[in-house]
């Protein structure tokens, strides 16, 4: 399927860690304001794909990226301002990492690093992002507490709030719900449906049903190969284009 004026386009993307191939010739286009679900078993390159996008993979020793990645038609590997690129992308990692500072400072970190000093602006950002991450009511009274002292699920929502704090155009959620209870997960999923009006969302998930609920299109990665990408209904339907997709989403997979 060809996407008209893609927001993000991967062309023949390859990623290697030393001798090991993590992604093999990925061609993928993502439309603006789309939620793209990415599913696939462990070690199939889902996280690598996201880390290529915000160019943090280049800080990993031994990682080698070839191919072309464009955002709004601009080659990200030619961008001089890497911080500027990363501020356009919100990234939520699978394991919650509260930075060793207060809840408030965790969320205010990105705007501060970008040069915002006005207390009122920062207050506004902190409240907005914590509300969006469904965390505000729980931490409203303890914004000064250490982020690392929150429970695992709260920390995960804190990282979501932090990922939203620099108002990204693209949001990458890498297994955001593994540490969160189902009720809160549902609340965040509602938020995502709201957020998609303003941003393009990558949803990497092991919960295939989550992709089914949220994603417009779903991509299936297997051992670094993009097996198939298509409308979610089709991928989860009776007749996906590839037999392996059917096996995976229906749990027949060995």
């Amino acid at each position, binding site marked *: 399927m060809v996407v008209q004026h893609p927001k993000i386009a991967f062309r023949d993307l390859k990623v290697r860690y030393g001798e090991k191939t993590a992604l093999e010739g990925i061609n993928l286009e993502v439309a603006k304001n789309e939620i793209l679900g990415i599913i696939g078993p462990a070690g199939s390159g889902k996280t690598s794909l996201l880390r290529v996008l915000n160019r943090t993979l280049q800080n990993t*020793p031994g990682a080698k990226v070839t191919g072309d990645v464009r955002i709004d038609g601009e080659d990200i590997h030619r961008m001089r301002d890497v911080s500027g690129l*990363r*501020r356009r992308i*919100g*990234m939520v990692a699978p*394991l919650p990492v509260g930075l060793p500072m207060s809840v408030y400072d965790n969320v205010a970190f990105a705007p501060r690093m*970008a040069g915002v000093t006005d207390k009122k602006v920062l207050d506004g950002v902190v409240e907005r992002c914590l509300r969006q991450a469904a965390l505000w009511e729980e931490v409203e009274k303890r914004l000064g507490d250490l982020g690392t002292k929150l429970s695992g699920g709260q920390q995960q929502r804190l990282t979501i709030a932090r990922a939203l704090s620099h108002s990204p155009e693209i949001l990458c959620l890498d297994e955001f719900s593994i540490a969160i209870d189902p009720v809160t997960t549902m609340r965040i999923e509602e938020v995502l449906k709201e957020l998609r009006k303003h941003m393009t969302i990558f949803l990497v998930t092991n919960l295939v049903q989550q992709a089914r609920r949220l994603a417009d299109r779903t991509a299936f990665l297997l051992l670094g190969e993009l097996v198939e990408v298509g409308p979610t209904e089709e991928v989860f339907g009776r007749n996906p284009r590839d037999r392996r997709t059917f096996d995976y989403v229906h749990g027949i997979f060995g």
Partner: protein
Amino acid sequence: MGVFATSATARRRHRTQKLAFVVLLGVTVLLILPVLAILGMLVYRGAPALSLEFLFSEPVRGMTAGGIWPAIVGTMWLVGVSLAISAPIGVLAAVYLNEYAGDTWYTRVIHLAIVNLAGVPSIVHALFGVGAFVLFFEFGTSILSASLTLAIMTLPVIIASTKESLSAVPMSFREACWNVGATRWQTIRHVVLPNSIAGILTGVILQVSRAAGETAPIIFTGAAVFVPFLPSSVNDQTMALSMHLFTLSTQVQNVPQEITYGTALVLVGLVVLINGVSIVIRSRIRRRRKW
């Protein structure tokens, strides 16, 4: 008889464990004994010499009487100047090696050099100091030459210990910062350094005590047997506690024993004091640790 009843094997295992425990405890006590013995002897023989006058006056009558004030001041000069040189360079080098430099052939050469430099005996550092600072750069025998020599000696250990502290900060913290668009330096400045400063300071302070105690590196480069005035700049020669102790115990005759032991006690006391300060700093910052 149930499965959990004490069998002969279990009893034997229990005995073995007890025996191992006693042996390990014994070894640990053996380690502490020499320290206690040395300190005890120093206090027993040196304490009678201690007085304000001993601490704050000059040696007189060919150093067989009087105090050790110039040596105390000299040691402070040497330690202070050498630290002012080695601490910033060492910490910055470690930040570069740990946070910026990749694993390339030249960083490996640098690592090799640091490890080897740390293993060089202090007398070799001393010879290097004479050749490089005293003669080649023509700093003469001065506080500057001696401090530079001490700085070269402490530098590799400061680099190694600082690197250790930096790499103890979890990688995930750095990645979280990069993900929101913080630059490498912002990440170091706001997250890595605040969370490793305790370890860095400890490493640096331990090197202070090492610099204070060494005699070999300063003996030919800046320390003198006797200087009739206190140093007023880094170009002066100076007395130093370690050097003074060496002189008293080998070069001068008829030194009352308590003066020699008193000097040693002051030197060891100074080192213990510095180490104590470092332990207090470390535990204070540890208590504030956030992860």
